[in-house]
């Protein structure tokens, strides 16, 4: 597009075929709804198509997110599961375009209510942020400005977006704290004066400030203890039912994810390898990685059995494996997986899988007998 540009992003290895899959993915949303307890929606709220994000490293660009497509319906909770380095947080930050250098978005499209997010000008982006999508960060300790009172950090958003007076904003900020069960007089507290759970709730209050249709929650409870985690997740659930926002929910904790999400996308090495309704993923995981991931969380009840986890280690994204990126760790790997990259396709109604024809254990169109 730009003449004289010297930057060349990483090219896909199989450059000849990437476009075939994208068409199918545009429809993922509407179809996948059939299989969930979730009411069918005609129009997705957020649509991400073939998103690519690269980090520039001295060795060359590293593609952290490689052609990811998904969509979220109004009121839906989409879980993005994967290990650290799989690219799930990168996606979250890319949606709001707050990725830190040396990151670049090198391809794909993001539509929010039909708005082309990646083409927004600076001032439009400012409007879009928080009003359309707000975000709850992983560590409240780090995401709150340490030298600013909690109240001021809420008022900030209100004054900027709602164009209301400081006084009105302060009243509203008090209400918001109330909603998340924090005493109003904590408006004047500094972050370090609150406990970990309270801080995270304050962050949620800030995220709620503009009553956005969608929220990104990037590991919102990872830094907290289980009891506090439970309280906070319950609170989010309650607020979601009251206010009806959608959530892009990111965590590596499969148990929490299954409990909380309507639909789950499993990421590995920058790609989505499987996507289906939450129960379906849990009860009928098809991808070997998904199965491995689930067997990495020992159950709290039932008979004690040996669990294997996954052999090997996540790949170095500077040199991702050829073909199926999971192949070096896969116990069911076939020669074809080492060379050709599988494409995400719908193998069961609403159940998408990065798939090669003839994958063991899966017959296209009928329930796989995994498990």
């Amino acid at each position, binding site marked *: 597009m730009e003449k004289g540009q010297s930057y060349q992003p990483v090219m896909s290895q199989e450059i000849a075929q990437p476009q075939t899959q994208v068409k199918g993915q545009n429809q993922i949303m509407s179809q996948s709804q059939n299989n969930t307890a979730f009411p069918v929606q005609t129009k997705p709220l957020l649509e991400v198509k073939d998103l690519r994000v690269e980090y520039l490293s001295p060795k060359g660009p590293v593609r952290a997110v490689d052609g990811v497509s998904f969509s979220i319906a109004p009121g839906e909770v989409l879980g993005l599961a994967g290990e650290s380095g799989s690219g799930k947080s990168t996606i979250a930050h890319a949606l709001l375009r707050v990725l830190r250098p040396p990151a670049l978005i090198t391809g794909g499209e993001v539509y929010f209510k039909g708005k082309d997010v990646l083409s927004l000008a600076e001032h439009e982006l400012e409007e879009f942020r928080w009003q359309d999508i707000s975000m709850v960060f992983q560590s409240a300790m780090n995401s709150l400005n340490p030298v600013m009172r909690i109240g001021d950090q809420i008022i900030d958003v209100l004054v900027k977006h709602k164009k209301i007076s400081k006084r009105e904003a302060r009243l509203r900020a008090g209400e918001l704290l109330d909603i998340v069960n924090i005493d109003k007089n904590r408006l004047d507290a500094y972050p370090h004066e609150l406990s970990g759970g309270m801080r995270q709730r304050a962050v949620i209050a800030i995220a709620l400030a503009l009553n956005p249709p969608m929220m990104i929650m990037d590991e919102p409870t990872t830094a907290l203890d289980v009891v506090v985690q439970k309280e906070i997740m319950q609170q989010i659930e309650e607020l979601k039912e009251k206010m009806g926002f959608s959530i892009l929910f990111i965590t590596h904790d499969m*148990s929490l994810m299954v*409990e909380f999400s309507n639909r789950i996308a499993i990421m590995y090495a920058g790609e989505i390898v499987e996507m289906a309704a939450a129960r379906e993923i849990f009860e009928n995981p098809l991808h070997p990685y998904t199965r491995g*991931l689930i067997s990495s969380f020992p159950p709290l009840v039932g008979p004690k059995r040996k669990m294997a986890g996954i052999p090997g280690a996540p790949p170095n994204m500077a040199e991702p494996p050829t073909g199926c990126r999971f192949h070096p760790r896969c116990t069911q790997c076939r020669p074809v997986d080492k060379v050709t990259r599988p494409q995400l396709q719908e193998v069961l109604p609403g159940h998408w899988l990065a798939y090669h024809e003839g994958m063991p254990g899966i017959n296209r169109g009928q329930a796989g007998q995994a498990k």
Partner: protein
Amino acid sequence: MTQSVAPAEQRSGKGPGEVVLEVRNLTKHFPVGTLFRPKAVKALNDVSFTISRGQVVALVGESGSGKSTTARLISRLMPPTSGEIILRGKNVLKTEPHRPSLSYRKEVQMIFQDPFGSLNPVHTISHHLERPLEIHKMVTDKNLLGRVHELLETVGLTPPDEAARKYPYQMSGGQRQRVAIARALAVEPEIILADEPISMLDVSIRMGVLNLMEQLKEERGIGFLYITHDLASARYIGDRTMVMYTGYLVEAAESRELMEQPAHPYTQMLMAAVPNPEGGLIKKKAEARGEIPSLTDMPPGCPFAARCPKVMDICKRSMPGRTQLSQTSDHWVRCHLYGQGEEKQATTTAQL
């Protein structure tokens, strides 16, 4: 000193239940405050338990509950305020009060939480394994490299000669943690204190590390103190599980029994909070509010009283002792719901 062997442990253990390590009334208070207003952070209070040969004892609790302090006291990285550490019947704080002897170092090893911090970035992997071998004169110089390779193979780092030459930053978190385990194994210890060994690892490789620990326990009869905040992994690997809250052990039993019949309201609360995919969506329920008390200003009575749904008057006045619930699994609890408990200062007789 024969009394130090807790008979209950022998009955409960699955393996050859000879008690290797016992701690009694271990207490750690960190002095804070000023000269004029001295205060103490009561990090650990009156903790007693035993670890037998080939037994994994899991210690579960929230962050700040004193789990890591327990490990650091037993590894003698810091001195306890009071209490006893008894290794094979020998009260080591008496016999070697200032710094632990090499023989203690040889018997009790430790694995740390952060695999990025526990290996020195400037040294090769082989240096990390050679040092303990040299210090404890485990092998002759000639066999040094061979032994290093052997250790790396034991923990599944192959090919060992390649692994030995690497620097820590050339390895993934899981590989580093395996090196840390190999280093602990180098001196052929009796006890390994594992302080949240998997919490900083990628999810998919956690089971590998847990299984490796299990294997070492089975094959070499090493006893583990497995510290974690994750009840499920405690159940998975721990023969016995102890629950800690604000520096107190509040309940302990065989893992299965503890998770199936949690007695202490805190244990119950923990169990209910663990996300459970089988159980479906979160059920909404008013949870007990109230904060964890500050370790510097502990209220009298039970520290859990402020958050306890079953709190009684007596809970705010006095701290209960231990009450034995089951002899067969040595299940005990520290809660007024089950009675006063026994006087806690019974240091001369075995702790029940």
